[in-house]
């Protein structure tokens, strides 16, 4: 195929230009600031001092561990649940459209609202969650207060809020799979479960790639939901890199937080780039 002319590079131009000017250029500029002491008004070159300082943060290790746990946990959960929900919600279920809306609704609601609502729902005593659990004779834990649990509780809410997006992408992915393959599989004697694992899962791969990539990057950088619910607490127990950086930023340590952002970027890239490389290598073309 004469790809040069059928798929001309100028197609990239309109979006690419906007992206270049409004995103890449400032980003490169920001890199310079990570090498300076910067209070927004003045910069003073200090070399790698900021990086050194950032890596000495007292709760950095907790932050990195939490970041990875949070990112991996939420993206796996969103991908798996999203796929299952998408399959369920394309199966012609009664009230399917309503259920789709229901599941997507959390995506629409502002994080602030979700944060406040869930802090209340997860209240150890008067929260609906524990009241609900007590009907089953379960003594619910102190979700957001228990330092060992807080991160996971936030992750739970993040999954709740984000699974609608994953589901939507999966629904779009399922829509592109030709029913021919399911027919062939039915003839080949596949059970529902086999069809799911051997037809749906491989053929919905484009959606999976997107969902995993997006939710992993999102999860590793996640911050607003954590901030809205625990502010990284109690203490520092649910701090992630992004919230550590945000706190520095809030404190006015701009150069330091820029350096932190670059370190976070490096961490995300370190995890995501090999993954996408692996994904792309196995892409099926039609």
């Amino acid at each position, binding site marked *: *195929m004469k*790809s040069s*002319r*059928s*798929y001309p*590079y100028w*197609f*990239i131009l*309109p*979006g*690419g230009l*906007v*992206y270049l*000017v*409004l*995103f*890449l*250029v*400032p*980003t490169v*500029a*920001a890199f310079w*600031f990570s090498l300076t002491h910067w209070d*927004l008004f003045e910069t003073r070159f200090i070399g790698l001092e900021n990086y050194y300082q950032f890596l000495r943060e007292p709760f950095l290790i907790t932050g990195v561990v939490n970041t990875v746990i949070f990112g991996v946990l939420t993206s796996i959960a969103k991908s798996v649940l999203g796929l299952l929900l998408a399959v369920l919600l394309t199966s012609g279920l009664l009230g399917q459209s309503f259920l789709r*809306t*229901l599941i997507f*609704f*959390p*995506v*629409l*609601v*502002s994080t602030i*609202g*979700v944060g406040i609502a*869930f802090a*209340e*729902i997860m209240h150890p005593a008067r929260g609906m969650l524990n009241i609900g659990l007590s009907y089953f004779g379960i003594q619910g834990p102190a979700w957001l207060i228990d330092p060992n649990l807080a991160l996971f509780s936030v992750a739970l809410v993040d999954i709740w809020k984000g699974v609608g997006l994953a589901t*939507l*992408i999966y*629904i*779009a*992915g399922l*829509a*592109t*799979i*030709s*029913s021919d393959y399911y027919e062939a599989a039915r003839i080949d004697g596949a059970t529902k479960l086999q069809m799911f694992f051997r037809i749906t899962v491989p053929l919905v791969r484009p*959606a999976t790639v997107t969902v995993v*990539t*997006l939710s992993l*990057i*999102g999860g590793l*950088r996640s911050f607003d939901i954590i901030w809205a619910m625990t502010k990284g607490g109690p203490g520092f127990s649910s701090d992630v890199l992004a919230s550590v950086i945000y706190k520095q930023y809030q404190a006015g340590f701009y150069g330091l937080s820029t350096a932190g952002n670059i370190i976070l*970027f490096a961490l995300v*890239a370190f995890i*995501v*780039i090999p993954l*996408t490389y692996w994904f792309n290598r196995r*892409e099926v073309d*039609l």
Partner: protein
Amino acid sequence: MKRQQIINGVIALVIGVLIFVTPFIFIGLTAVKSAAEASQLGLSWPSEWLFWDNLVAVIQARNYMLLLAYFNSTVITVGAISLLVISAAMIGYVIQRRPSKWNGFIYALILAGLMIPPAVVPTIWLIKELHLFKTLHGMILIQVAYGLSFSVLLFRSFIASIPRDLDEAAIIDGAKPWQVFFKVILPLLKPVTVTVILVQSVTIFNDFTNPLYYLPGKDNVTVQLTLYNFQSQFSSQMNLLFMNILLVTIPPLIMFIFFNKQIVKGMTAGAVKG
């Protein structure tokens, strides 16, 4: 067995609904309470239903700021989405269809957009130079720049599921590259396009940080900024805040209900034999 399945199904459904609905009952109830009651949070029944009062209070707040915000947010969202969908689909199309040594690099740049947080201050300097600061079209372009990575990623991976034979048929039929794209590829990308529209418009409509920095000024308020009318660090009017949250959620919700039906199954069925 069959009966058991139905019962299980219903139970699962009820649990599902509970999980997704209860938080909204909470938000909804809080939104109709009095300030004093709302400040106590909790899922108690309101002693007094102040739906209308709160609604009016929210809409009237600060000179009907909410209505202006609706307008601004809508303009930004619609403008940015139109540009985004087309430019992102075009980029995704080219990098999916055209294998070259540049692709890895372009792809990395795109991922960078998801991995690196935008640099606010340099951006402000830049858009001031470009005379885009404090303008709606500047805001639109910024939203395009920030939403591009996500959209390209989504489009790129879905374009793989459209058989290349169709591009070829169109090329043989005499279509220029842009005609192949707009007349054959883009219509077939409808499920993804709808997804991008939904997700990005929610993101842009609900964006709060970016307008705050790039679009200051009373005439430029966007919907999420209206939440500030009722929420502050030290004290919040929870009832009005939640009413406001509900109100700003409605336009995207309507969008969703409308577009959700547009995700049609089996768009490429019958296209090729093979």
